[in-house]
């Protein structure tokens, strides 16, 4: 046990751990994380199995990375605890008495004599010190007075508060990893789905996409209702950066999309020669429709929102965005196929050449309507309060450690012949320059009034 404490209380071990963790963390940004086995095999070849097995491809969740964090966690606790006792004594049970030769070893020191009596000198010094915000403690023995004057002593604990904050953040991280839950659900307007792991339901009342003038997306707004036992508990319109919170669950506007399974399409048929006509029809992909007393039959067979040809010349969709909507249509007249091919909503000039045979029929893909849906991320993360608390401690501690630097002055006042002899000394860990200026001022203003 003793060697365990000794090992983990060493600052060298902390530095070593910090370097190792920094290097490991860097490694995770050099190797892409969380890809498929095929992607790694393609990129790293024979190294791929090693990378996957060693956890490097999921580095930040790998046992050894978490183990490093755990070691770091223990190291911080042990380091802080072994040092804090001394700090507490220093802060709350300080030694007030001192010796002259001890004062002489301090970085700031001054010894002088003055004509006042010992008690007058002591009183005057206390006045000056407290007017400068020092808290003064005193003690006397055998006619010698001792003063201990200190300010900003909470700064002594700055680093400990930072470390406490980091411990809470790491703890919060582990809690998030172990108990956090996150899931995306897609909802069309008026659709209701149950919230996983609860007895309540989420209903999307309305979903809107707002655009800027240049047609880029300004915002998505989903009006959500939470329903429990068929009763609406609350309704709120969420948007990006403005989620809905309810009993530890948070609902985010995380994405959007369209239901491409059977969108509604509009087609315009036209014939200029021989029984000319022009007619527009609306139908759903997959549903045949006929016009001209069933002489002409239109069969919209397949649809893709973002048409692209693969290397094998197969049609597929590049994305789920309607960047290049294309429709495969078969048209027959009097039972004979007169047209079969791809039509493009945005690029009619690329339509498969119209009118096979001699019917001179032309067809155009005019309009498209698909049901938009909203993707809502449902998250519950019990680690979050720890993270915020930890951050608060870290920031408070940093402020204290850097800008609330403790100052401590000691005085020894005694009678020497007909005069009073004052010895003073002070220490400050950082910001020595400004402390020296203050020290000189204190001594000056005392001697001036002397």
């Amino acid at each position: 046990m003793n060697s365990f404490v000794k090992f983990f209380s060493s600052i060298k071990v902390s530095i070593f751990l910090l370097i190792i963790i920094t290097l490991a963390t860097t490694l995770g940004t050099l190797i892409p994380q969380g890809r498929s086995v095929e992607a790694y095999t393609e990129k790293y070849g024979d190294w791929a199995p090693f990378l996957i097995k060693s956890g490097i491809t999921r580095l930040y969740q790998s046992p050894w990375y978490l183990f490093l964090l755990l070691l770091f966690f223990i190291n911080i606790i042990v380091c802080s605890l072994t040092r804090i006792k001394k700090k507490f004594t220093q802060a709350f049970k300080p030694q007030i008495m001192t010796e002259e030769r001890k004062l002489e070893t301090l970085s700031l020191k001054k010894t002088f004599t003055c004509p006042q009596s010992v008690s007058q000198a002591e009183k005057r010094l206390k006045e000056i010190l407290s007017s400068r915000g020092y808290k003064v403690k005193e003690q006397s023995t055998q006619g010698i007075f001792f003063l201990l004057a200190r300010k900003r002593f909470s700064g002594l604990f700055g680093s400990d508060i930072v470390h406490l904050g980091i411990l809470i953040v790491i703890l919060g991280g582990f809690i998030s990893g172990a108990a956090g839950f996150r899931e995306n659900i897609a909802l069309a307007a008026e659709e209701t789905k149950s919230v996983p792991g609860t007895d309540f339901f989420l209903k999307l009342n309305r979903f809107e996409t707002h655009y800027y003038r240049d047609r880029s997306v300004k915002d998505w707004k989903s009006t959500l209702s939470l329903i429990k036992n068929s009763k609406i508990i609350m309704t709120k319109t969420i948007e990006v950066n403005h989620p809905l919170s309810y009993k530890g669950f948070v609902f985010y506007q995380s994405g959007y999309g369209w239901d491409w399974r059977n969108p509604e399409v509009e087609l315009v048929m036209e014939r200029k020669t021989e029984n000319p006509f022009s007619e527009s029809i609306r139908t759903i992909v997959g549903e045949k429709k006929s016009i001209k007393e069933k002489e002409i039959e239109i069969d919209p067979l397949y649809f893709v929102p973002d048409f692209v040809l693969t290397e094998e010349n197969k049609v597929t969709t590049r994305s789920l965005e309607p960047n290049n909507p294309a429709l495969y249509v078969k048209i027959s007249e009097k039972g004979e196929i007169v047209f079969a091919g791809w039509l493009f909503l945005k690029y009619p000039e690329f339509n498969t050449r119209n009118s096979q045979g001699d019917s001179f029929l032309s067809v155009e893909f005019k309009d498209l309507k698909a049901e938009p849906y909203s993707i809502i991320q449902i998250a519950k993360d019990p680690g979050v309060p720890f993270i915020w608390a930890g951050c608060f401690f870290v920031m408070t501690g940093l402020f204290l450690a850097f800008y609330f630097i403790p100052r401590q002055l000691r005085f020894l006042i005694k009678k020497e012949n007909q005069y009073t002899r004052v010895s003073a000394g002070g220490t400050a860990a950082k910001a020595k320059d400004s402390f020296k200026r203050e020290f000189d001022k204190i001594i000056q203003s005392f001697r001036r009034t002397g």
Partner: protein
Amino acid sequence: MTESALFFCAFILYAVSAAFLFVYLFSEKDKWARTGYQIIFAGFIIHTAALAARTLESGHAPFTNMYESLSFLAWCGAFAYVSMEGKYKIRKAGPYFILIIIVLMALASSPLMPKEVRPLMPALQSYWLWLHVSVTLMGEAFFAMAFVTSILYLITKSKKSIRSKQKKDLTPERLDFISYKCIAVGFPLFTLGGLVFGMIWAYKAWGRYWGWDPKEVWSLITWFVFALYLHTRLVMGWKGKRSAITAIIGFLAALFTYFGVNYLLAGLHSYL
């Protein structure tokens, strides 16, 4: 005056100020340094006006694309310089640092940086944009200052034996001290802006406070390096050369977080 004219004015003033300070470096006449300082101060004020004009024109924070953010980082650099010079009189490190500001301004005005005002994408529409970016970049500007003083430390230290006549305000000890002071300002700012505000905003916008996104990870790496700087210095008593090298590595990590991640690693921060 328009935003671009103000920006250009500030750029010119920074360049003139650097010229004055370089003259001071060789002539050692105080008046050059004083005028140089006044000029960069004027540049800083005009640059502030440029950023304000940009904000009024676009209706959002002046750091939503590379041009804006480079200009803002240069402004933070000018602020860091003006405040550190005001407090610690670092004149002879000044011209080198202003060179960094000038490089940033030059990069910002390069034709490769699109300058037109674009509407904000949904994820960026938040007041956390102001808090997160401005505080982080201010922290990074102080890291840049520490970088310059650390490099100067290494140079003056190695030259010491050759040139015995040391300029008074550029002793290695002073440079080491100023590096520390810059990091003492930069580190809390970077922690607050980059990590704390970043986590709060990520939680509001993406539903998680931390997602191991490359930009997040590199902020953490930067933070670790400066944590190392502070611990080796304050607890193990490292000073001078080793401290300077750590500070330089820390700044390079910060630079990579700001710049490299966008171009070399894919992630959620791809818009900036």
